[in-house]
């Protein structure tokens, strides 16, 4: 039987092309996954607030600013008035503080860029986690070392479930015993 170009195309070229396409899809999928999940996102904020300075060097407790983290579902980004508790007197001559004072005096909210987000059909509850003694760093990374905050962990459903199923493996620093978190749909979706 004579080999035709068609045979060659079908037996060699086509499988190779399909393989290459599939491989490139697979590679892109895995390599780009963290980026798709938002890991590494560190937007420029309207005020160059440094968590490293406040939470790290000065060791201010997270909850001084994120007041409702142990009370409700939202951690809450502080109102300008909370910043002004100190900055009415502290460092009022710095350019960033002047910006802050301007916002405050003009009665304008500060348009902070959002870094961490779960989709609106997922109802993550900060209070339920924090009151169990789970450290903020487990999801948000060590913010105390961040000059500019960026997302360090993936916020996908897989990431949530991973920890809910094996809490101790994922949070080895937890000293007290934690039960696995709920994994049924209604726990997060309603």
């Amino acid at each position, binding site marked *: 039987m004579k080999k035709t170009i068609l045979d060659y195309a079908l037996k060699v070229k086509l499988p190779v092309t399909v393989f290459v396409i599939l491989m490139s899809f697979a590679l892109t999928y895995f390599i780009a996954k963290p980026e798709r999940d938002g890991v590494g996102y560190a937007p420029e904020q309207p005020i160059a607030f440094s968590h490293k300075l406040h939470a790290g060097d000065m060791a201010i407790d997270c909850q001084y600013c994120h007041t409702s983290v142990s009370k409700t579902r939202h951690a809450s980004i502080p109102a300008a*008035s909370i910043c002004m508790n100190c900055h009415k007197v502290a460092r009022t001559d710095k350019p960033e503080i002047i910006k802050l004072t301007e916002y405050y005096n003009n009665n304008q909210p500060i348009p902070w*860029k959002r870094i961490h987000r779960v989709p609106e059909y997922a109802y993550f509850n900060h209070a339920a986690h924090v*009151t169990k003694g789970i450290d903020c760093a487990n999801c948000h990374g060590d913010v105390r070392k961040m000059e500019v905050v960026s997302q360090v962990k993936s916020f996908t459903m897989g990431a949530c479930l991973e920890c809910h199923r094996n809490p101790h493996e994922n949070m080895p620093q937890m000293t007290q015993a934690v039960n696995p978190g709920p994994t*049924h749909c*209604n726990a997060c*979706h309603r």
Partner: protein
Amino acid sequence: MTNSKPKFWKSLNQYNQKPESVEATHHEFVNGVTDEFDVNALPDKSRRKFLALLGASSALAATACSDYYDKGEIITYNKKPETITYGEANYYASTLNNGAGVLVKTREGRPIKIDGNPEHPIGKGKVSAGDQAVIMDLYDPSRLRYPIKKSDSKLVLYKDEMPRSDWEKVDTQIVGKLKEAANSGKEIAIVTHSILSPTQNKLLIDFAAKYPTAKVYSYELLNESEKISAWFDSYGSYDLPSTKWDSADIIVSFECDFLGTEGNVTEQIRQFSSRRDMDMPEKFNKLYQVEGNYSLTGAMADYRLRLTPELHYGFIMSLASEIVKKGKNAYLGSDLSVLSGYSLQQFADQNKLNKKFIDELAHDILAHSDKTLVVAGSSMPNSVHVAVNLLNEVLGSVNNVYDFSRANKTQRALSTNDELKSLVNKMKGGNVGVLIHFDSNPVFHLPSDLGYKDAYQKVPTIISLVESANESCQANQYIIPINHALESWNDFELRSGYYSLQQPVIAPIHDTRQKEAALLNWMSDNVTGYSHDLYHKYLMSNWEISVYPLSGSVADFRSFWFAALHDGVAVIKAGQTEKPAFNISALNSNPFKFAKQNYTLLLGAAYYIGDGRFANNGWLQEVPHPVTKSVWDNYAMMSPATAKELDVKFGEDKLNREADMVEVTVSGRSLKLPVLIQPGMADNFISVELGYGRTSIGDVGKDVGFDATALMSINGGITSRLYTGVSVKKAEGIHHLVTTQEHHSLDEEFVKDFHLKRHIINEYTVPFYLDFNKKYDEAKRRLKAEFAGDEVAFKKALKSEKIHLLGHHEYKNHSITPDRVYTDVKWGMAIDLNKCTACGTCVTACNVENNIPVVGKEEASKGREMHWMRIDTYFSGTPEDPVTSFQPMLCQHCDNAPCENVCPVVATTHSPDGLNQMTYNRCVGTRYCANNCPYKVRRYNFFDFRNDFADGYYRQDTLELMHNPEVTVRSRGVMEKCTFCTQRIQEARTSAAKDGRKIKGTDVKTACQEACPASAITFGDMNDPESPLSKLREHPLGYHVLETISVKPNVTYLSRLRNTVTEEKHGEH
């Protein structure tokens, strides 16, 4: 036990076994409902398509150019109010404009839910469906946003073309006009609804002091003036005592829909249902309803008599004479010669009344004479109410059933017809300088033959203080936007001594003012110095002078005020008021003189939209009418026999929605209406609901239904709402009427074999149940001895004994899968059908809580209404005299849920606490689950109803604020259903975890349970043997709908007991 099963039917079509109706029960939707859909018939350039394209292309452009990482911004407070915690609700006690005490739930400053204020002595934590839905009116996009002054009064106003003015300009001009009118001696007429607020009343008095020519006219379309004037004639007082419905053993109601539309319905339902406790069957009250219309109260009655209203007077007098004849007369006043012409026997024979009804009624009121409450409806004339008062006197029940210490307060009597006529004459004669519509709509409400519409256009200055433009605004020069009840200050005194406070829970959303504050501003010398707390200060100072001294409080005024504000109500000690003496001459001075001629017409009250002021509220338009299950319409309701006589048809087409038109004519005034044939109506009797047919209102309520005020006369028929000698004839044309009655019908054919075991509806009678209880207790003792110590065997034997005693057949469920074991909390619900009066409050509360969209009439006609909860109505007996049974139906959260097995993407699953979960983001919309649900409770988003309904109605700015942030807003292509308020369960779980305790079943209240005025719904943990829910699940009257198909539903229904004699049993066995 005889094997005489009554057949249950949902509609006349089902009764007559119309093939399409039977076929429809086998499926989720009626076959052919979408046949008319033709994609080519859609306009290819609609506004919405254009907007969608625009949106899509700009979104595409935006994604191409922007950082795809971008997650937007978090906008925080600049200065956070201390009382607000993100994500936590705040509750404020307030009062709505009808005087209902409410607790308003706000999130981050936005009101999102209204429930009853538990501290309120009248509502006791419950409000009606209409009050629940008021939240939508606050965010209504058609609300006026700024003051309007139109120069050319000939133009018809369109919303977009309203000429904007500013407050300073209109204020200055208006004050000028008011001064001019006062100086030239021309009248300043203020037209208002009834005044329920003492401080508002004082304000109007003060206004008249400032402008001496001011005169106040108040009217109410649905008023009680006949009842009040009869009370005055009988007892010499305008203050009606409050009724103690729970003290009456026997209630005899004449055309009075006290469970539906008349009086303080939530309170009445609560008190009525409190005497329907199945654990105290001997304490059951008994309701006799005599009516021509078929009302919700009639549907709840133990005994019902169809009787045209012209005969009610004679019936009441005959009953009174029967009591006197039997020597039970408790009235010790002067002679009762007025009764001499009446005899019950003769009356019954003459009018061929149901003998059984008459005998039962006479027997019961004689046996319980001092605990019998007789009432008549507000559409009945003065003379009937006087006769009712006499009957109560003769029975000797007046002191037992009325509370004189807490009388219904009349702040200001409604204007008489003569006063209204004189107003019209003065307007015609040019003697009225300024006309103020004080949040009222007289052009729509007042009878057309009064001539108000023509006369008021002659008034040189008209000021309308309204929330959104209405019929009375059309020719106006000044349209002043006012605050919603949730943005206002006020006080209300519905009953003497119950002072209820209204406080704003949100700052005015638009540039509006409170109507009282606007008046105060026009009274002040500094017109441009308006501030929002004008009326707040006025209210406080009035309370300091008039309410605080009455309270006898030892605290200072500020503490008293803030305590009242916190509780929402200040209760002043009741004065002891003796029952005044009955004046029998009232009966002679005003005898009933109407005989039945031709047709009788009753202009009834709408169940949800009030007198039309809530017509723009989509939720209320779409709650099915509790009796007819119609939505988005009104119609001429008539009996099957009358329809036959008129040769009109209703719902006989394939899709059950074509209604013939009739022309109703009352002394020259006529109106064309569609026909709705309702089993149970009196013959030659037509009833039409008022409040529909608004022409100048927002997009939702515009041209919905027919304006029946066109048939009213200022001189009245029997009363302003009841006419005899009406002519009715068939008219040309067909109207589409949508009723949800046959939507989502359970498959009777499929379950017909189960009838041997249990019905969908199970009912017994009180005597039967009393007898059952005796036998059951005896069996319990006997079996306890027999199976001493063996608890399991004892329970099994007892259950089988119970089923036998109830007259059912035992059956065994076979399951092919092992039962799942629930170790922790397991949620369940119980609905007590003894208490449920089908008022629809639960449906509305569920809509508000769970962000359920309004779909509109067109989609509702296809069975696509989105309500997670519905109230099924079943009839039994004959179409002439049907017996009605109600059953709230919602997701049953079956243990073996048939929906879960068929979902190809595992979007619906079971949770460890027994919930059937629906995960929207996973759903791909195969609709297999809805197809497989035997209860037909799953709802599919055929459209994104938020875009689809009324051209993107929901997408308008303000309505977005209304949503409950704890519940996902579903979009097109997603299935949804009752979640047992899983967001509330999650909230309770979190707060229990925070406190370090385990969650209890009683920690959670579902929205429907919280709202139910009768407290018929119980929710809780069925794994806790001590919980109220477990007790109901074990109750002998408890049953599950379709329990024989072994899906193991978790909603228990408690069989209704009818308080009738055993021979007349309905649905038992």
